[in-house]
């Protein structure tokens, strides 16, 4: 009997409007688990190298994991993967909500989409069936309107809708894929790929329960999470949200500000979690923000999602579109020198309405602000927008212009790296890795994370390894969990020696596995999460009946990482592209505890060599060796890697 997964993958060719169902073996599912790893299998097997990311030959893959859809916190996640139109290398993004669980309940584990529809369509997947439907009447609608229209058309208000907004239709290079109108497969431009295929939405519905191999063991884990939640950091997150982290980042000198020129921002208090809670969380007028100002995903008791409502004034926002979290508050806030939280809430609403990655959008605007302040952009270039740091109105206006590809918004819709090329100026101020804008954790403070920013296959990403402080000052809190991964030797802050690299590598395998099994990184992880490595093993065992070990699960993560590296190698990417912006090495930070801090080039180069060596990659090229690929059961990739 099969437990956890459906054993069915839906293949859709939009060019020929054909559908077929594949039923892979149990061995296949155990090897790849789902999510990112399963997507990579199809991208490598069925897509040639060198395709145009916005062309017909790109493949867009959606996968959930073998445990998606079971009634426990943090399992309703979906990964979208394709060749990225922002970076030109592998694109990969995760999202939560109810849609992932409902895809599983509808009878499928993954959807592999090829070709391009002649005219806009949407997919309707329900109770083991799938069909392609006309979406001409939906094209151009913002996410809230499109979702309502689909639910009315299909006569079921409980349908879950995954979709692109107008930004994806216009192929903004960092367009996001949305579900619930406020959950985003945000990074690397997967929404633009979906738009390039004339695919507006995927609606799902189903009642199929996921069978569990060991119900008693599963219930024990559910109970364990409920008991642990009140005393955990997750309890704090569900009161004030991730915005509460601004205080700590500021105290540490690690709050990216003014396009990463500084690690401190005087206006941080106006943006923090308590300010959000007191002034903007839905229900704050009646003191009922704990009841109405939070939201959750299928099966999850953590309820970490922010819901804001602004009823009056210039920046009215609709709670349908959720609320900004830490990254969004930074990219539209401290990155841009803006301390107007209402304006940031509005920018977040625009992004969720039109379907945009808030990180790349805010960061691109911050880049443009620095270029403007340096005198390299004029009011004529920007269509009259005074792009000075701190100009909240300009930031909100420009966000909408990007979403609609209007005037200067069309330039920034290409991403900051392409915008610099198109304008012929501003390249020295870019804060990108492989063309993707950087998230809100500073390389100067978290040196191990800095290495991952540079070496990560899909560009700068803050969710691809555990953060340095877990193996530095905070080690005592996490030592039991880290010991399961063989990590028992905490390091000094800003260190980047072999033991720190080992920490980064092993937690990278773990996060890579989480994105394949499709588990939420707030709930499941190696350190501060609600459940640790041992519970992840128990959960997999209880759901699937497989006698997995932590080593086997880490190997899934390592496998996915290597497949991504092979994908990039086919596109001509090697260690030459594993770089950080030069200004981190050349220009010191200004202000606060990190005043004067720069990265050390020699330290970084040595660390990169050690990282490749530990991964079993060729140090000269940064590519996986044949031996490593064979060890991971990826011998079939060797020809691809060449």
């Amino acid at each position: 009997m099969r437990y956890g997964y459906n054993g069915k993958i839906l293949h859709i060719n939009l060019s020929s409007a054909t559908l077929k169902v594949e039923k892979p073996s149990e061995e296949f599912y155990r090897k790849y688990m789902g999510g990112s790893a399963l997507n990579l299998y199809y991208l490598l097997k069925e897509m040639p190298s060198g395709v145009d990311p916005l062309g017909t030959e790109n493949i867009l893959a959606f996968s959930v994991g073998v445990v998606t859809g079971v009634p426990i916190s943090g399992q309703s996640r979906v990964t979208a993967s394709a060749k990225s139109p922002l970076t030109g290398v592998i694109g990969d993004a995760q999202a939560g909500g109810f849609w992932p669980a409902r895809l599983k309940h509808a009878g499928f584990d993954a959807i592999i989409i090829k070709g391009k529809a002649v005219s806009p369509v949407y997919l309707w997947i329900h109770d083991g069936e799938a069909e392609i439907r006309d979406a001409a009447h939906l094209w151009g609608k913002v996410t809230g309107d499109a979702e309502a229209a689909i639910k009315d058309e299909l006569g079921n208000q409980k349908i879950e809708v995954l979709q692109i907004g107008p930004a994806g239709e216009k192929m903004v290079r960092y367009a996001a894929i949305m579900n619930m109108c406020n959950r985003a497969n945000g990074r690397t431009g997967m929404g633009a790929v979906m738009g390039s295929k004339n695919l507006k939405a995927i609606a799902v519905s189903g009642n199929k329960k996921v069978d569990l191999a060991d119900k008693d063991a599963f219930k024990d884990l559910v109970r364990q999470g409920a008991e642990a939640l009140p005393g955990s950091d997750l309890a704090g997150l569900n009161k004030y949200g991730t915005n509460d982290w601004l205080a700590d980042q500021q105290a540490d000198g690690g709050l990216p500000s003014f396009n990463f020129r500084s690690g401190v921002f005087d206006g941080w208090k106006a943006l923090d979690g308590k300010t959000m809670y007191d002034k903007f969380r839905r229900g704050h007028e009646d003191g009922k923000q704990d009841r109405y100002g939070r939201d959750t995903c299928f099966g999850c008791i953590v309820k970490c999602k922010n819901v804001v409502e602004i009823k009056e004034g210039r920046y009215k926002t609709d709670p349908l579109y959720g609320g900004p979290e830490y990254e969004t508050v930074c990219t539209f806030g401290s990155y841009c020198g803006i301390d107007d939280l209402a304006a940031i809430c509005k920018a977040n609403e625009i992004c969720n309405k039109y379907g945009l990655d808030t990180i790349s959008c805010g960061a691109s605007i911050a880049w443009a602000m620095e270029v403007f302040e340096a005198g390299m952009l004029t009011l004529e270039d920007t269509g009259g927008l005074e792009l000075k740091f701190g100009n909240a109105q300009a930031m909100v206006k420009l966000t909408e212009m990007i979403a609609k590809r209007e005037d200067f918004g069309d330039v920034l819709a290409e991403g900051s790296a392409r915008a610099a090329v198109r304008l012929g100026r501003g390249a020295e101020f870019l804060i990108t890795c492989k063309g993707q804008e950087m998230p809100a954790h500073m390389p100067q403070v978290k040196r191990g994370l800095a290495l991952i920013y540079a070496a990560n296959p899909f560009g700068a990403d803050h969710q691809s390894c555990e953060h340095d402080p877990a193996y530095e000052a905070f080690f005592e809190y996490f030592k039991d969990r880290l010991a399961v991964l063989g990590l028992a030797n905490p390091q000094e802050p800003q260190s980047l020696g072999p033991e720190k690299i080992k920490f980064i590598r092993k937690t990278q395998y773990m996060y890579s596995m989480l994105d394949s099994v499709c588990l939420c990184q707030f709930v499941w992880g190696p350190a501060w999460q609600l459940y640790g490595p041992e519970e992840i093993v128990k959960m997999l065992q209880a759901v699937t009946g497989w006698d997995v070990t932590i080593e086997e699960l880490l190997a899934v993560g390592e496998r996915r990482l290597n497949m991504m590296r092979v994908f990039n190698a086919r596109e001509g990417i090697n260690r030459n592209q594993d770089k950080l912006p030069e200004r981190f090495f050349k220009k010191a930070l200004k202000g606060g505890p990190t005043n004067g801090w720069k990265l050390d080039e020699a330290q970084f180069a040595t660390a990169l060599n050690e990282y490749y060596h530990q991964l079993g990659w060729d140090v000269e090229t940064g590519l996986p060796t044949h031996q490593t690929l064979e060890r991971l059961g990826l011998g079939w990739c060797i020809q691809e890697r060449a």
Partner: protein
Amino acid sequence: MLVKVNREIVKLEDRSSIIDLIRLKYLHFATVIVTLNQNLVKKEEWSNIVLQESDEIQILRFVGGG
């Protein structure tokens, strides 16, 4: 009395301990580290140490990816 917490002036009752300060602002977080005048203070000592006028305290919570 007045102390500095994360470089900001905070008013506390006289004879407040570190745990009193934690309860004031950080009760709902589990992973917290504290330094007092640049020296790390172990969690088991938080109740025992009475703060003095002009003490400089740094309180940090773990910040991961999110």
